[in-house]
């Protein structure tokens, strides 16, 4: 039992951490919490992870929709952004030749910065005051460094206004800057979010792919899976000694990795008495406001799109957020619809604050999309409000990232500085969920980094 580790949760992060520890000689038990919704895992899978577990040989399928984003235009037709730069340019040209001409340079500049983040994302957060970090940043060159310093604190609206004139294009890109965030495109730090979604994708693609990474990882040998949710983490004399399941069974272990968010891990699963009051207060202050509902529509035939966004301008997004700031659901929400081959359309609806009821929401979503369904009829509909997403997907407060990915909760500040290196004040208890660096929307990076820290800390 001295080298037994229990991993709480069975998402991509937890499974990556489990396998990496198993490779490092630990006996690993994964205690499943949260369910597989069958939607596939959204997120870029870091190359290190793919290589380490030979995921491609084991059946990894990365699904990158092409076009990766599309928006209906008021004048008819669609703006479509493709993985192929030339096709995007062609589509943008119909809106604005000036924007089309700028697109390749914009993409190149953003790709340079995303590359910088990509390297940072695949290990524990850097020390911003270290010489190593400074030298790394200098490698960006003058242009890149200035871009980085300017861009990080900026709002995505300001960034896009600098470059483009077309409302449709700015709305579509701005949406990537606010996805899953309780802020509008005019809020500082949202340009960083656009970059975050760009990491790991080719230039000109600002949306992470989907993959079956969780399924592939679950089938790999080397770890043991135990059904049943964790009820609490057993701690004695400041050290982890095991996990108690809902059934009452206790599994002894000298190490526990939790994929749950820090508030649940440290203040609910473990006895909060182990934390000093200041850390406890910081953990309680971690912002994790859910703003997304998911509407699922079954259509009788294909709507003629694979992806479609209703985000016609930056002002539209900002107004949608305005309603939520005062506790209401957006009257005109930002929608992002994805259709699979069985004509099932899954719609991301933003902004829907946690805990707010809105009986008319599905109707409004259907109405907003009806003109774009190509005549297909809606056979069935279902909605998951933020509270449902918390229940079904394990998103605390309905927040996918577990801790909102804002500049004050990113990198060495994620989720709070005292926990940023995945370890907690309780010996043997580690955090490996998306509340950790580098955050959600990346398949497995938090788990990879956490396991890396554990292996490096072994005597």
């Amino acid at each position, binding site marked *: 039992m001295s080298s037994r580790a229990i991993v709480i949760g069975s998402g991509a992060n937890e499974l990556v951490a489990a396998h990496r520890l198993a490779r490092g000689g630990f006996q690993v038990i994964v205690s499943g919490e949260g369910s597989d919704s069958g939607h596939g895992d959204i997120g870029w899978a870091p190359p290190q992870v793919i290589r380490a577990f030979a995921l491609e040989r084991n059946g990894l399928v990365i699904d990158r929709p092409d076009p990766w984003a599309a928006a209906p235009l008021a004048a008819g037709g669609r703006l479509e952004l493709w993985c192929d730069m030339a096709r995007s340019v062609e589509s943008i040209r119909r809106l604005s030749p000036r924007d089309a001409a700028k697109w390749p340079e914009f993409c190149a500049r953003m790709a340079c910065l995303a590359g910088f983040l990509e390297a940072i994302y695949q290990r524990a957060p850097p020390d911003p*005051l270290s*010489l190593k970090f*400074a030298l790394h*940043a*200098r490698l960006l*060159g*003058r242009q890149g*460094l*200035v871009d980085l*310093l*300017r*861009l*990080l*604190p*900026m709002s995505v609206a*300001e960034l896009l206004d*600098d470059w483009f004139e077309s409302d449709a294009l700015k709305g579509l890109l701005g949406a990537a800057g606010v996805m899953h965030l309780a*802020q509008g495109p*005019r*809020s*500082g*730090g949202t340009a960083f979010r656009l970059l975050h979604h760009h990491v790991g994708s080719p230039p000109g693609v600002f949306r992470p792919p989907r993959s079956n990474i969780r399924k592939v990882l679950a089938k790999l040998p080397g770890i043991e899976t135990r059904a049943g949710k964790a009820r609490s983490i057993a701690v004695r004399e400041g050290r982890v000694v095991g996990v108690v399941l809902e059934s009452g069974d206790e599994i002894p272990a000298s190490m526990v990795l939790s994929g749950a968010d820090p508030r649940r891990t440290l203040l609910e699963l473990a006895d909060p008495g182990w934390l000093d009051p200041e850390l406890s207060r910081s953990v309680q*202050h971690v*912002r994790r406001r859910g703003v997304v509902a998911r509407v699922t529509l079954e259509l009788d035939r294909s709507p003629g799109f694979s992806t479609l966004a209703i985000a016609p301008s930056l*002002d539209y997004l*900002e107004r949608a957020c*305005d309603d939520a*700031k*005062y506790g209401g659901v957006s009257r005109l929400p930002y929608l992002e619809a994805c259709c699979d081959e069985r004509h099932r359309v899954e719609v991301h609806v933003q902004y829907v604050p946690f805990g707010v009821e809105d009986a008319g929401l599905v109707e409004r979503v259907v109405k907003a999309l009806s003109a774009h369904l190509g005549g297909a009829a809606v056979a069935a509909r279902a909605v998951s409000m933020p509270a449902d997403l918390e229940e079904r997907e394990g998103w605390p407060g309905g927040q996918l990232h577990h801790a909102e990915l*804002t*500049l*004050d909760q990113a990198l*060495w*500040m994620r989720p709070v*500085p005292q926990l940023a290196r995945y370890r907690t004040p309780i010996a043997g208890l580690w955090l490996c969920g998306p509340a950790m660096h580098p955050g959600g929307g990346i398949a497995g990076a938090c788990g990879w980094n956490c396991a890396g820290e554990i292996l490096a800390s072994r005597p």
Partner: protein
Amino acid sequence: MRSYEVIVIGGGHNGLVCAAYLARAGRKVLVLERRSRIGGAALTEEVFPGFRFSVFSYVVSLLRPEIIRELELPRHGLHILPLESTLTPLPNGDYLAQWNDHDQNRRELARHSLRDAEAYDEFGRLMHQMSRAVKPLLGMTPPDPASFSLKDLLGLARLGRYFKGLGKGEFHALHKLLTMSSADYLDEWFESEALKATKSASGTIGTLLGPRSPGTAYVLLHHYMGEIDGVFRAWGFAKGGNGSVSQAIAAAATASGAVIRTEAPVARVLLAGSRASGVVLEGGEEIRAPTVISGADPRRTFLDLVGEKHLPGELVASIRRFKFRGASCKVNLALSEAPSFTCLPGPGAHLRGAISISPSVAYLERAYDEAKYGEPSRRPYMDIVIPSMIDPAMAPPGKHVMSIFVQYAPYAVNGGWSDARREAFGDTVIETLAEYAPSIKSAILHRQVITPADIERSLGLSEGNIFQGELTLQQMFFLRPAPAWSQYRTPIAGLYQCGAGTHPGGGVMGAPGRNAALTVLADGR
């Protein structure tokens, strides 16, 4: 004709500070001011007979103590009277007051929330600690992070060492302050709406941002910065109005031999090849000097006074991108009697302090929401002082002057500013104020409303931004006003910048003027 070594364009407080330091170092300095009076936005004027106003900026809070000390400003007539309190009247007839007196303040806060009263001292300690951490940065010339010159590398190393020396805790606290919204930040500390709103309002001053916009938390520090110096009260009012700040600095400059010429508008900077050689006035007069320092904002300095054809394209692009977006308005009132607030009727100590119309964070955020789509706020945020309560010489006996700082009135208002629009906004301000002080309407003898468009027209501040450019993170430190040109120098040899558009920015601090002067001297000019 006298010859000069240095010409300073603009007799605002930064230009004057810069001139004073250079004159003291023995340089022959000429200050050229476009208007008939010096002071720029730090100006006292008898707008209506017998009523004297700090027309634009109206309090002294951030003027650097080393400048007060080194230029001996008290000897030159600067006298700062403390503002003792901040009163926030509430719609329900109650109020929240913050007093300088610690015990009184604690009792008042406890009336609203015991928890807040407990947290207040700890919050104050953290803010003091953070102010101490930030203070050395204000007097520092920002190193260029992308440069390979030895000086910049040493500067960066020094900066890194400085941050390391702060310790992890302070560094992280600073990171939070720089990146969070003031509303989120204060939510971690307090629960009383009026307290959170009044504190967060100060984070939005001068910027088209709301209390929920990330990046506004940093300005919370400004309210704590002066106090730790112990030289004078942080939050004060200059006797004789804010024009006396400028007058005192000008007196210090002329005492050291600087010459100040008013009604001398500079049309452009004279160039000899890629060097500055003087200036041309609008009348055509040429004045030569090997060093020219512009106190104008970056847009005017680079795009108007120099001209883009003389500048690298990258700098021109940066300056074009530099955000101004003025959103602050000023209403000056001549009153026949002292105002009376429903929540605390009649005279009282609260009238000697600031009065803040900021009942809740949502109130402020709504005011911002209207402005971000180009409409003036229907229920604006206001910061009010009544200088005549502290300095009776500002108004005829028994009468009063009231200075109201108002947000938001966006420069780029839909349809543009007109006389009718301006007066309509003035009416909005009075209506809003009358909700808390109904008698104000009948007490108004005269009213002056100054919109961002007026500020731009009369002072030459682009888009009426009171800080010569928004003080947001992407326009601070080595990015202010443009990357590679944040060290007061310009691509034109002999041309320098000394306005609030350079590090560390505006707020009647004087630091840009001082830093620029030290740079000029270090360059051996």
